[in-house]
């Protein structure tokens, strides 16, 4: 579901936006759990990196975007795609490798994208999306529209050179891009403390002339406000912002990783601040969240049914499409 932000300054947040955020958190949560099930049943192959526990970042950020704004996603990308408004059926068909999926079964989970909602795509290369996002922002500059781009990526990617380079270039060209650093504290099994000697990754912004701020990534409303503010700056030609949203995975790196290396106490603390529960508390009215949940459940059921009954890509057709030399 794509959400339209209120015009002007971050006024008290309107209820439809709050409900939309809740919808996206809930939908992502349930979508991921369903994917894990389908993976266990053999319907999904390859790599599957659930976004469990981090849903509030994408939901909060995308709520602050317009439908014509762009996002660039990662290997852990279902939540970004859902929150930007993608169709669950076309997503599920893709993730199960069907001809009816967004990418005709060629991309899968790690490469999910949706032109329909301006999701420029997940990426199997850690950090690979960061310059692409900056470049989309440069495209916006060339075209002179007032769109913005959000680049999602995590702490691991922030130690890759393309992050520094892109941050620097976005700064000098004042590109309308928001660097949304989802610091989930791990890159596979490597805790962030072992991957860098610096404390707040947001501090890298100023080192490249870009404002950097930290936000509680489990608090979707906080993410929403910071994104809205950054998007406003970007639209006004004031350039990029680095937002470090601190969050935590609820499990291993991918579906087959039990994540035993994770600090159990930290995990428990973060789980106690489950973004789904937190957002439910914001809405406060259980009848409203229940309606959303029911809607999502039936959407999801339909998505699974659609995916499973969809045909696989046709081999002969696939081969016919390959150039000979």
């Amino acid at each position: 579901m794509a959400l339209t932000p209120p015009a002007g300054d971050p006024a008290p947040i309107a209820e439809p936006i709050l409900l939309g955020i809740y919808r996206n958190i809930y939908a992502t949560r349930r979508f991921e759990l369903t994917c894990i099930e389908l993976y266990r049943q053999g319907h999904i192959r390859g790599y599957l990196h659930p976004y469990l526990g981090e849903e509030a970042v994408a939901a909060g950020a995308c709520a602050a975007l317009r439908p014509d704004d762009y996002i660039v996603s990662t290997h852990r990308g279902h939540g970004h795609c859902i929150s930007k408004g993608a169709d669950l059926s076309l997503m599920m068909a893709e993730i199960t490798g069907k001809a009816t999926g967004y990418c005709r079964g060629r991309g899968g989970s790690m490469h999910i994208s949706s032109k329909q909602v301006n999701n420029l795509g997940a990426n199997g290369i850690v950090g690979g999306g960061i310059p692409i996002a900056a470049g989309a922002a440069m495209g916006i500059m060339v075209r002179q529209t007032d769109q913005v781009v959000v680049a999602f990526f995590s702490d691991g990617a922030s130690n890759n050179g393309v992050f520094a380079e892109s941050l620097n270039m976005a700064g000098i060209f004042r590109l309308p891009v928001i660097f949304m650093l989802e610091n989930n504290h791990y890159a596979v099994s490597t805790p962030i403390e072992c991957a860098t000697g610096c404390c707040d990754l947001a501090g890298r912004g100023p080192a490249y002339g870009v404002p950097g701020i930290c936000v509680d990534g489990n608090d979707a409303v906080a993410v929403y406000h910071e994104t809205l503010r950054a998007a406003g700056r970007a639209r006004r030609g004031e350039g990029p912002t680095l937002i470090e949203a601190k969050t935590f995975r609820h499990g291993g790196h991918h579906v087959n990783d039990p994540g035993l290396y994770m600090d159990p106490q930290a995990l428990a603390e973060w789980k106690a601040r489950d973004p789904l529960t937190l957002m439910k508390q914001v809405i406060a009215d259980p009848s409203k969240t229940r309606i959303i949940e029911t809607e999502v459940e039936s959407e999801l059921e339909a998505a699974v049914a659609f995916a499973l009954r969809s045909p696989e890509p046709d081999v002969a057709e696939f081969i016919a499409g390959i150039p000979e030399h």
Partner: protein
Amino acid sequence: MVEMMYREALRRALDEEMQRDPLVFLMGETIAERGGSYKVTEGLWQKYGSRRVIDTPIAEASFTGMAVGAALVGCRPVVEILFVDFAMLVMDQIVNQAAKIEFISGGQGKVPMVLRTQGGAGNGLAAQHSQSLEALFYHIPGLKLVMPATPADACGLLKSAIRDDDPVIFIEHKLLYMTRGPVPEEEFLIPLGKAEIKRPGRDATLITYSHMTLKCLEAAAFLEKEGIRVEVIDLRTLAPLDTETLLDSVRRTGRAVVVHEACKRGGVGGDIAAMLMEQAYDDLDGPVLRIAGRNTPIPYNLKIERACVPSVEEIVAGVLSIL
């Protein structure tokens, strides 16, 4: 026809395409006010401004990745990588991103970008500024690969490359920038994927591209005096390869030599030779010969540098050896 230099012809192509399409823009190092190291973009910043002729920091990986992103949202970026050697810094963006996105997105995304760069030995620039690395791109599905030898081809092919919806690797040669040749006065395009018979002949086919085209033409002129008429085919576009023109020629001449400056081992010459053998074995009177660069990095000293790449004499001798 007007006479112009290769680099002027490239500039004209950029200028015409920028004029025609406001979504075309340029990115690279010192290409703006300074006009680029080889002066290809001279005057364009003055004409089109800093939004469309963009000087970048020395961050090749990311500005090439940015071209991918800009292309994805509908622009037609042309990035300049100063030396093809430096393209080694952007292989992820080219091989894993630009070449893959249309495919992995099931056709949702397109990456109509051009990466202009420049290669080859000859100026004493040593091992990190003299390589011929086209084979690395030739092997990657999803890329087009263009290497023009003349000003007219440079102009017409660059215009087509910019209009093409696939990522195009466009490799110039440092020894060609100052060469001159006739270019049509009127606007013109040369389609990608079409080789050109630069000199017709019947005794053997010389298949080549880029700067070696000039050497092959010299060799052919020399051989003509001996009564040997070799056909010189300039591939111009390496991928997609114009197999039809090649096969047609080889079927007529019965003999083929592939000539390139890049190292022989793993160079595109092997692929072309193998293809010809597979598809025209019965028409061939002998093996397809490769004349190519030696299997070594390029040294600084000019005398030994010269020994690394094929000379006109070697090409002549090669042709004579298979007749």
